[in-house]
């Protein structure tokens, strides 16, 4: 796959998330941390719950269900009860467009 436009920069306020669906790919949660964008798998690896609703703090997202925390840069687990990391996705901002490559992990480019 390649980069696809998923939303406008203004669609994701700072410290918030947006649930993105790209055909043929699992749901993705896109976050804005002070103008920097991060994309991770939307479903928490612990319970079946959307992380796009999660609480963002210190480049981490906290699942609102059981309070597991993940690093938005790497997907690593920062707090239990989750034990498995999140998948990450490459994000690019082009003008006011936010683009994601669902086939490529963050930092892999």
């Amino acid at each position, binding site marked *: 796959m390649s980069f696809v436009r998923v939303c406008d920069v203004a669609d994701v306020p700072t410290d918030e998330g947006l649930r993105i669906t790209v055909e043929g790919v699992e749901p993705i949660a896109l976050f804005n941390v002070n103008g920097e964008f991060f994309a991770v798998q939307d479903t928490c690896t*612990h319970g079946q719950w959307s992380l796009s*609703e999660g*609480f963002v703090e210190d480049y981490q997202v906290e699942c*609102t269900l*059981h309070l597991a925390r993940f690093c938005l840069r790497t997907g690593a687990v920062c707090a*239990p*009860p989750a*034990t498995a990391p999140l998948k990450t996705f490459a994000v690019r901002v082009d003008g006011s467009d936010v683009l994601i490559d669902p086939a490529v992990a963050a930092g892999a480019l």
Partner: protein
Amino acid sequence: MIDSIAIVGAGLAGVRSAEALRAEGFPGRISLVNGEGILPYDRPSLSKSVLLDPGSSPPPLVEANWFANAAVDLLDGEEAVSIDPPSGKVRLKSGLALAADRILLATGARPKSLPGSLEVEGMFSLRDYRDSRQLGKALKAAANVVIIGGGLIGCEVATAARKLGCNVTIVEALDELVIRALGPHVGIMCRDWLNDAGITTLTGVGVSQIVGDRHIEAVKLADGRILPADVALVSIGVEPETQLARHAMLPCQRNGVVVDATGATVADRVFAAGDVAAWPTREGAPRCLETYLNSQEQAGIAARAMLGIRVPSIQIPIAWTEIAGRYVQSIGSLNGEGELITREEGSGTIIFRLVNGRLEACVSIDAVRGFAIARRLAEARAPLDGAKLRDGQIALKDIARGLREVQNVTS
């Protein structure tokens, strides 16, 4: 020098403490006594989804290969029969003994029983996977179900039993449901939800007798009423598993093993965490919290303390539950002095308890995003304006941000 650590109990507290020890780089031996003998698992689903599908299993606490990869000796089917604090010896049922520099008691709790009631078929209690599977199977075949005790577990199981099509009655001796965990205010709401779901709730009345010789036929109440029952669950609370500590003459108070805010007992080698530990709380008296998130946090704190890294943490009880389709989260207790303020938050509700203008506790109903912020405000005992809180138009995020700015200016 700490070379070996024995953890007694492979529930949430035991397993999370083993994880924390390895995460801290502890290279020594870790023995984890796992009485149930199956891969350690997460319990919250036992009173919810596992009941609905007895073929399903609760999620594992860690991947099956974690124990081998982390070189943690999982002693399946073993039980500790005694500990000797001065030497650090743990005697096991099989006759083996572990010699440990530190011992963590993570033995949890067991359900309280009604005297003589469990000999009758159709009577259940709920703590482990086996209990959940058996109860789930019985519910599938049952017409009339009586839940004795309207706390969180009772209300959760009632929800599941109703979903399975049973006629369900909850009998609670206190004047309202879930009083201890969520307070009477939320108790009333809870009763309404359960009633709307078709569940009968009887409060302020005790049980006088279980009717039936071999198999339960009915539950007789103190006021003489008789409720027909094929299945009854006794969910009247738990008692911590303190036998090892008591036999070792370690102080126990309010039933739990007395520890400081790092999980340390009075004996240098012995620590406790999770449901068995009477841990210092912000509300005052140390107590067993019986909650998932507190057990998990205590496990990490006690693990580090065993390695000499003391990071004391006074606990604020924090919990979640699912009752009649509502997702409820709480921090602190709504019971106590102060003012209760109800806020409509999105499609849900948050109830705050303010004491002298500071946030002491809150309960959120179907408002997970709001709770993420409210929880932090409660942890900080943030000074809040009741009128602003009541106003659903002012976002909680903005209230929190305003506070941070004030604090940045004044600090």
